[in-house]
């Protein structure tokens, strides 16, 4: 690669005259002024890089969250039976690098048609959102698509205890503050 060069290194007459006339300073001024001017009349369209103003007014405008976003966790239920999909296999807890999942289960006899099987059944599920780094490893490890990281991202709470989500919260999801003007 040729060595990096800039116009400042050139010593032509044109450059010298430009420097004498403060061209470099005025060029910058012109750019900022054009932004200022465009900001006054252009239609606002938050998050559009071609517009003079880029700001998205978050609580007023709904935040744009992508489909794959890894936010608040959720325990999915079987849409037909309404039972939890979790088979208490503990794989998610094992996959988590920061140990923020605790799966509680008991072995119980479950009647399935004629047969009676001994099966692990989920009792409690604790998810510590304060420690979680939303890396998705747990959800990837889950064999039943039960644990999932969803799009909600407003996880702030007023007290530390609020970070520990229990099974009920994980299944229902949390109530979010919806902002309006």
């Amino acid at each position, binding site marked *: 690669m040729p060595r990096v060069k800039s116009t400042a290194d050139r*010593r032509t007459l044109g450059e010298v005259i430009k420097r004498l006339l403060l061209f470099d300073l005025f060029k*910058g001024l012109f750019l900022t002024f054009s932004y200022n001017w465009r*900001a006054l009349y252009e239609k606002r369209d938050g998050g559009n890089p071609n517009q003079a103003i880029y700001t998205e007014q978050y609580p007023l405008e709904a935040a744009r969250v992508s489909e794959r976003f890894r936010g608040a966790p959720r325990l999915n239920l079987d849409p037909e039976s309404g039972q939890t999909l979790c088979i208490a296999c503990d794989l998610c807890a094992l996959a988590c690098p920061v140990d923020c999942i605790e799966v509680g289960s008991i072995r119980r006899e479950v009647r399935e048609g004629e047969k009676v099987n001994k099966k692990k059944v989920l009792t409690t599920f604790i998810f510590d959102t304060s420690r979680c780094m939303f890396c998705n490893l747990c959800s990837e490890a889950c064999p039943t698509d039960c644990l999932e990281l969803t799009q909600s991202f407003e996880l702030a709470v007023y007290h530390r205890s609020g970070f520990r989500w229990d099974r009920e919260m994980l299944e229902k999801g949390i109530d979010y503050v919806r902002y309006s003007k």
Partner: protein
Amino acid sequence: MLGTLTTLMLVAPEWVLRWTKEPRGNAFWAEFVVWPLIQILIVLFIVLTLVAYLVYLERKVSAFMQARLGPMRVGPWGLLQPAADGLKLLLKEDIIPLKADKTVFQIAPIISVVAALVVLAVIPWGAAWATIANVNIGLLFILAVSSVGVLGLVLAGWASNSKYSLLGALRSSAQMISYEIGMGLSIIGALMFARTLSMSGIIEAQQADGVWYVFFQPIGFIIYLVCALGETNRAPFDLPEAESELVAGYHTEYSGFRWALFFMAEYTSMLVTSAIAVTLFLGGWSFPGLGLIKNQTLFVVVSIVIFAAKVMVLIYLYMWFRWTWPRYRYDQLMDLGWKWMIPAGLANIVLTGIWYVLALPKSRGGVFGLMQLGLRDRLAPTRWSGIIYFVVTGFVITIPIIWLVLAAINRRTRDFNLHAQRQLQIKLRAKRLQKHAEPQAAGEGAS
């Protein structure tokens, strides 16, 4: 409060004089006590509100230049933001560092803000009654008082007992003093034409000459603008409070309302320097066609609006510079002050003097005879031929000459010979490293 007191002190001598001579009636009280007080209160109220809104304006302007929106949440378009900010600053805890020099620490912001506010007394905000105090040495008064402001910064830096504050204070004192020289020099050219130091007098002179002095004194105006930036510590000369180096410079340790006072002082002095520039170079409240308004009250109101508009244009310019350019380094700033501004100011005075003498009436030893006696025995350029002469000399001759002089003085600096400067720096480096680092490295080995 103190600002009001000092303004009163300004009126006092005249007041006492009258007191001894004239019979005291209602008219006296009205003219010299009630009316000035009303004016003072109005000006203070308006200026302080204005200052608060200047902050808002600055935030908005910077936001628009940076593809942002700026304050939007308090009130429509964030218009109540200054009120919210003021309230917040008032309610904040006033922290005084344990080892600070308490009294000085407390007084410093007051000095700084008073020096900025007192100056407001002599600024001609508009025609007739809108000129509050027409002091015949108005400009001198402004220059003198506003340089007291630096005392506030120095004391603040010293009393905080913090190294950052101290460095900031040192920087600001050096900077303000050197830029004040340039500022003083830049004014003289315009004063040659105005032949008075009274602020209203300067405006009248420009009206009488029929042209704003910026056209006679383009270089003077530019120097004044640059020096005013330096004097008010605005970017690109905002070194004393260079955030990225000195945290917040001299007011690092200040919080709450004391900090707000410094802030107020900064914006007020911005207002004041712009107002001086407007008075001196841009014709103050006068504007072509203003004389057509016959109604006296309307006339004054319009004049105030014109003055404010001109000041706003300059303030926008300040903000524009600030949000576009990087910041100078301390030594480069001094370079700019001493090697560019001051020589340019001196050269400008000399050249303006020459043009002026050449243009004097023949009876007074001039060559071209392009001036005549006007109002109050003041020499004014003759209509059109004289004006054209001064504009042409100002723009076509003075600017190139000064530019070349400056280029000659600074031919070795980065601005003109970047390549050589670069090589020089590379050579210097080896020397520097040897001087500073090597003994240290040896010491490291020993310990």
